[in-house]
């Protein structure tokens, strides 16, 4: 059982890292601001989400797992808000 949980953790964390890395790559390589923002916000939330998902079985207690989930929820909320604001700035700059 714990072996299964460990395998799940490794798999999910690796997937999360992959998405974070992909987001970084997108930020560095995409041609214009809006598509860079697109790459960043998607990969960001998914990457952190997968890592949190992977670490939850390791948290040991329900409270610890909820804490991890809260971290992710806050990051998502902030990411969405700031994504909106950056997009607005980018549009104003291009006009």
């Amino acid at each position, binding site marked *: 059982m714990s072996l299964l949980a460990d395998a799940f953790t490794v798999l999910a964390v690796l997937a999360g890292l992959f998405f974070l890395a992909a987001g970084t790559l997108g930020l560095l390589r995409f041609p214009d601001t809006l598509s860079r923002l697109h790459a960043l916000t998607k990969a960001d939330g998914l990457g952190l989400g997968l890592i949190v998902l992977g670490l939850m079985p390791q948290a040991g207690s329900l409270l610890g797992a909820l804490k991890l989930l809260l971290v992710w929820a806050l990051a998502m909320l902030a990411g969405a808000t700031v994504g909106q*604001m950056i997009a607005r700035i980018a549009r104003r700059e291009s006009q």
Partner: protein
Amino acid sequence: MSATLLIDLALAFSVLAAALWTVAARRAFEAVVGFVAFGLVLSLAWVRLGTVDVALTEAAVGAGASGVLLLGATARLGAQTLAEVRDQPAMALRIATGFFCALLAVALGWTLLNLGDPAPSLAPLAAANLAATELGNPVSGVLLAWRALDTLLEAVVLVLAVIGVWSVAPDGAWGGIPGDIQPPRRDPALRLAAQIIPPIGVVIGVHLVWTGAEAPGGAFQGGTVLAAMWVLAWMAGLVRPPAVSSRRLRVWVILGPIVFIAIGLLGSFLADGFLAYPAAFTKPLILLVEAALTFSIAVALVLLLVGPPKAAP
């Protein structure tokens, strides 16, 4: 083993790179972004060194609060970008600055290389006496029991800083609402976030203060989180600060230091001296001081971040 070494090397390298980038940035705004990034990487490094307390403080106060304070300063300097280029200090001054900075760095490096082995430390003594304070976190024990004077003075410095910020207010604006008078921002995304995040953040801030007795956390970190939440709501145009002339506001700012000093004076009658706690009440008194300090720190930080009043009441 080699993997962790590699991580640590990468971290150390990142700290240096962020620091260099911050210093080398051409515009103030870039430098502030670099500074915040630097604080973030540095707090990761503190975690790797096993000092979660310092990491928390660095993340909250170093990267978060100072970063936004600097940002406010750049925004206020924004009109003077041209002057920035024109008013370069004289060559001699620049050389002297560079020379003394280098001298300081060399002296620090020399001291570090010549540290006694083992380094002189009071840590074992502090750990041995921790039980007397009934606290689980040695850092809180040191800060509030044995080095209480330092902590008290830090709290007083914040009050002085608020007075300093207020004293640059124009005469006509004295007594008014601090900060820019801003129209409510029409950004719906920001308004939504500023309605959802602060309640969660307040819980986290109080949690940080409360666990400070047993685990990493404490008044300064918790107070910073509380202040950040209020300023977030302010930036979204949801709340307005009370006027500077408000008596209640001023009482909040000085409450923490006053309670601290009062308990300290009490100590000089009931216990061994100023800032010493009577043995039976050590933990409740420390918690009381922490709670009062948290409120004052939060209010003082908000006032610092919001800035001096700009318009008449």
